[in-house]
């Protein structure tokens, strides 16, 4: 699921360490220091035992194993051998790879911007001082909690079925494309809309960020005659840029990994006509339906690579685009 470093309280990574060292010095004599150090070493590792075992067995170990698997043609029942880069070359010749990449990229490029623009717009409305904010905020946040559930995916299927609410609504405007669900040209929009529906989660983070922007900046700008749009572009956006960066990063990373709703709506084949064949759904089908675990591992590592590259590019871009108040050397 989802997880994220904080923006509201960015940690100075070394701060804790530095304070600890200072404390040590303050605490006392050279003689006592090694003792308490050793005490911390022992306690530290004792407290870390579950995590260390867990990481070796269930995260770090499996990562290395799957890297190895990606160079084999391992099949759950038939077994397999080392085949070098064959999986990776096969992948590029596999028509399913192109389809899955296309579907996933289209989704990321549509869902992330629309969701974030919606969430920022509503967040700005909700940071005005008015009655009912708590109610709206809670109501808008709720979809974020249930959107990934199978129940909502099933409701979504019904809403976008032929003759369903979306079909009827759009036929008022002369659209005769039927329900999104059977139409490969637009079926991806169901998932985009499902994502936009959860705008409440980034909205709450934007709201926290907006409240941090000092009011004097707006007052000063108003005195200088800056209009609403100018204030938005020259104050809100720069002051909010760390939060924007955080939301863009997390939403993008998560969008690449969409699974549940895509699986329920499109099935393992990503129907209709592969139009909802998400990358992770294809990994699942390869590994747990076809049992081609070596090949599926190669797919999974391509995803890691892609997400890694996208993350790196974003961090690079952030260096120039994100403004951290109080830091002059930007």
């Amino acid at each position: 699921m989802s997880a994220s470093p904080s923006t509201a309280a960015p940690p100075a990574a070394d701060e804790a360490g530095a304070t600890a060292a200072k404390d040590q010095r303050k605490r006392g004599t050279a003689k006592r220091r090694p003792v308490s150090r050793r005490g911390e070493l022992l306690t530290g590792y004792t407290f870390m035992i579950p995590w260390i075992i867990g990481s070796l067995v269930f995260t770090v170990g499996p990562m290395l194993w799957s890297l190895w698997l990606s160079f084999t043609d391992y099949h759950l029942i038939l077994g397999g051998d080392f085949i070098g880069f064959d999986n990776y070359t096969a992948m590029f010749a596999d028509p399913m790879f192109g389809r899955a990449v296309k579907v996933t990229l289209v989704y990321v490029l549509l869902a992330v911007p629309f969701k974030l623009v919606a969430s920022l717009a509503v967040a700005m409305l909700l940071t005005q001082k008015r009655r009912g904010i708590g109610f709206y905020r809670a109501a808008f946040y709720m979809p974020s909690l249930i959107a990934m559930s199978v129940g909502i995916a099933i409701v979504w299927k019904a809403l976008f079925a032929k003759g369903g609410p979306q079909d009827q609504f759009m036929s008022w405007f002369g659209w005769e494309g039927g329900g999104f669900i059977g139409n490969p040209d637009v079926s991806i929009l169901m998932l985009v809309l499902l994502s936009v529906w959860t705008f409440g989660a980034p909205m709450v983070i934007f709201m926290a960020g907006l409240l941090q922007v000092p009011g004097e900046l707006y007052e000063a700008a108003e005195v200088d005659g800056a209009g609403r749009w100018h204030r938005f572009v020259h104050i809100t956006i720069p002051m909010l840029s760390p939060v924007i960066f955080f939301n863009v990063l997390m939403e993008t990373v998560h969008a690449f990994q969409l699974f549940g709703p895509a699986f329920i709506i499109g099935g393992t084949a990503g129907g209709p006509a592969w139009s909802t064949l998400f990358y992770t759904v294809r990994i699942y089908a390869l590994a747990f339906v076809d049992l081609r675990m070596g090949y599926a591992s190669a797919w999974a590592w391509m995803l890691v690579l892609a997400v890694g590259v996208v993350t790196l590019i974003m961090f690079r871009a952030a260096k120039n685009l994100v403004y951290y108040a109080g830091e002059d050397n930007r």
Partner: protein
Amino acid sequence: MTAATDAPRVVARRRRTGAERAKSVAWHLALLAVLVVVLYPAFWVLTASVKENSDILTNLSPIPTSITWENFASAFDGMAGVPLWRFFWNSFVIAALSVVGIVASCSITAYALGRLEFPGRKAMFAVVIATLLLPGQVMLIPQYLIFSEMDVVNTIFPLVIGKFLGLDAFFVFMYVQFLRGIPRELDQAATIDGAGHVRIFFSIILPLLRPAIVTSSIFTFIWSWNDFMGPLIYLHEIEKFPLPRLLQSYNNTEAVSNYGGMMAMTLLSLVPVVLFFLVFQKFLIKGIATSGVKG
């Protein structure tokens, strides 16, 4: 202000409040429009669950032509002879174990990473941060092979073991962040009084971590309740299915003939999450705002 006589001032003020009111109305109208769109799917499933089977797909209005409780009756019957409460219970057991595991393991891991000084701490913390962004799919296949080697496939063990080992990087990170806000003087005072790390952890840190514990428990419960991929891979017998697996199988097999039952079941499966949210929403939203969780 100085030059104005009384009369124009009153008029000006009245005009301003008029404009204020218009603004306020516009504000509420804009948000209500958003609200209608956001709540529409919920409203739709609510009424679909009491519609006649034929009514759901042919009558497009969300208002039912007649109300029937048949759908709920058939939903409570569950699937393949297994009653619905059984699936609720299965979901509940997994969610409850997850909550216990997360709180126990993440708090001790975070204490070590956030408060103690030992070689390798920074490297371990870096691993935690790296797993925050790492796509979990890459570990899925070897994890499955390990669990089938351990002969625990088709049990809930694979679904909860990670929670007991502090592998939920996000919550470890959240706890560490929270720990940094707790003054170290408290630990030091306790140390001077002769308390060891175990004592400090249980009698000082744990009670102060309470807000983080509450937030993480709520999120863990809801995420575990919604989790689909884990049960899809590891659970294969219908008696062991949690709700998401039930809904998926029902959707594949019986929904064609009993669409209303499907809708009622869907609605019932969402009720606990929504209730949970309504009760804890203040905690939740504060938690997200300060730690940046995404639902």
